[in-house]
């Protein structure tokens, strides 16, 4: 009796997470994300060596660091030499993941190395939110067919195919969209958590403008962002931006239920992150990369239809011009 409703829920679940999607999109996401991590967000080895040399103990070790320490003694693994070795292993794995060579394995090794570096950095009493969602996304890519297209693996597979096999249709997979969907959900969760904690902790006083002016002024002054110093002197604008912040953070989750409108939420969030950096130097670059990927690849229909309507319009104009010239 209860079988039908359960199977209906499973069907809904599968329809949401596993719709057939071109593997090309996920491959582009892999290349962008790995390239960003390799050439933009890669760990600073000197910073890690400095921490290792100047601190005989961790201040507040991350779970990952504690897990490693439980297996390998600190004086063996947490040394400048071991970290130099780990750095290069991670880098080589990153290059392999970028070109899609043994994609899943190289992605996993690249991501594991990256996680260890970040966990190590955050084991000395400080932690930041910028890397978390991006780190999770990289790991999810290792569990998805992100090397099915635009990869050395795909090239090797094509070469090994029998000569009479001419099927070269662009690949689709039911497993090629869920990492982006997970990140969409995590953005909704993290924004909601950030927004609701402001309201629960401070109430509507968070919207008084003085709060945003204070946060912006301190960080803009320290980091040398003139736009933030100017904003700190604009009370009415600070009130308006406070309201925008709370609305975006608390209601971003609505985009999960309105796929047609989701790109607008992504654009709003992107503008929010760029604005935070421009005014106060909050460098959530990883969020910006992820939001851009969501904007173009989670619901790609909007820009495709926009592009095709532009092309059609241009063709119409060219046809009319040709007719006018010939007539």
């Amino acid at each position, binding site marked *: 009796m209860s079988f039908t409703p359960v199977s209906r829920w499973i069907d809904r679940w599968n329809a949401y997470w596993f719709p057939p999607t071109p593997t090309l999109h996920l491959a582009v996401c892999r290349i962008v994300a790995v390239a960003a991590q390799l050439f933009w967000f890669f760990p600073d080895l000197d910073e890690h060596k400095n921490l290792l040399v100047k601190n005989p103990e961790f201040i507040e070790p991350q779970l990952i660091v504690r897990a490693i320490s439980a297996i390998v003694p600190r004086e063996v693994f947490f040394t400048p030499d071991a970290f130099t070795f780990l750095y290069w292993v991670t880098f080589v794995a990153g290059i392999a993941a970028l070109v899609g060579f043994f994609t899943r394995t190289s992605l996993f090794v690249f991501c594991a190395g990256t996680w260890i570096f970040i966990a190590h950095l*955050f084991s*000395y009493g400080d932690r930041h939110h910028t890397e978390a969602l991006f780190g999770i996304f990289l790991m999810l890519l290792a*569990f998805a067919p992100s090397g099915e297209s635009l990869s050395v693996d795909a090239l090797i597979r094509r070469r090994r195919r029998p000569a009479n096999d001419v099927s070269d249709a662009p690949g689709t997979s039911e497993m090629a969209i869920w990492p982006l969907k*997970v990140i969409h959900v995590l953005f909704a969760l993290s924004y909601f958590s*950030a927004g609701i904690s*402001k309201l629960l902790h401070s109430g509507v006083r*968070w919207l008084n403008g*003085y709060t945003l002016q204070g946060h912006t002024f301190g960080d803009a002054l*320290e980091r040398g962002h003139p736009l933030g110093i100017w904003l700190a002197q604009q009370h009415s604008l600070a009130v308006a931006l406070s309201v925008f912040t709370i609305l975006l953070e608390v209601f971003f989750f609505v985009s999960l239920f309105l796929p047609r409108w989701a790109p607008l939420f992504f654009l709003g969030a992107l503008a929010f992150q760029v604005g935070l950096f421009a005014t106060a130097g909050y460098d959530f670059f990883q969020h910006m990369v992820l939001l851009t990927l969501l904007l173009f690849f989670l619901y790609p229909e909007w820009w495709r239809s926009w592009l095709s309507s532009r092309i059609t319009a241009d063709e119409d104009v060219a046809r009319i011009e040709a007719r006018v010239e010939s007539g």
Partner: protein
Amino acid sequence: MPQRKTLISIVILLVIGLHAVPVLYHSERGTLWPFMQWAMYKNSRRPGPIDVHQRRILAITSQGQTDTVTPHLLGLSITVLKQRYLSTIGTGDLSPAPELIERLNRHRDDPVVELRLEGETFTVTDTGIVRTDDPVVTYRADLSRSR
């Protein structure tokens, strides 16, 4: 394929569900990266003048060399430097100063013998930003404290 979907579904639920752990398990909320609590900038400010402090600690060695205490010099992050040392010493509480000197002297031949905290307060007013210099706080390793 159904088996793979089941496996990936477990991964999805795990990744989303693990975000509840730092919220529910407070003692570990800062050590479960990448599963974090996202309560950022939740504090508010009462209506009134907006002022911020900019502070730095100068370390003077026995040979008279002066270095600004930076996260790199200390081997700690800027957040820890601020919370443990800049903010505390900035209020006139010199209790963390001996520990700071001990940290700074771990890997140096020319030991730090004096710390000097300097700073300014910047205030947003109707006519612009006003800067005032804060009183200098000095700590000498051998002479205990003096101001």
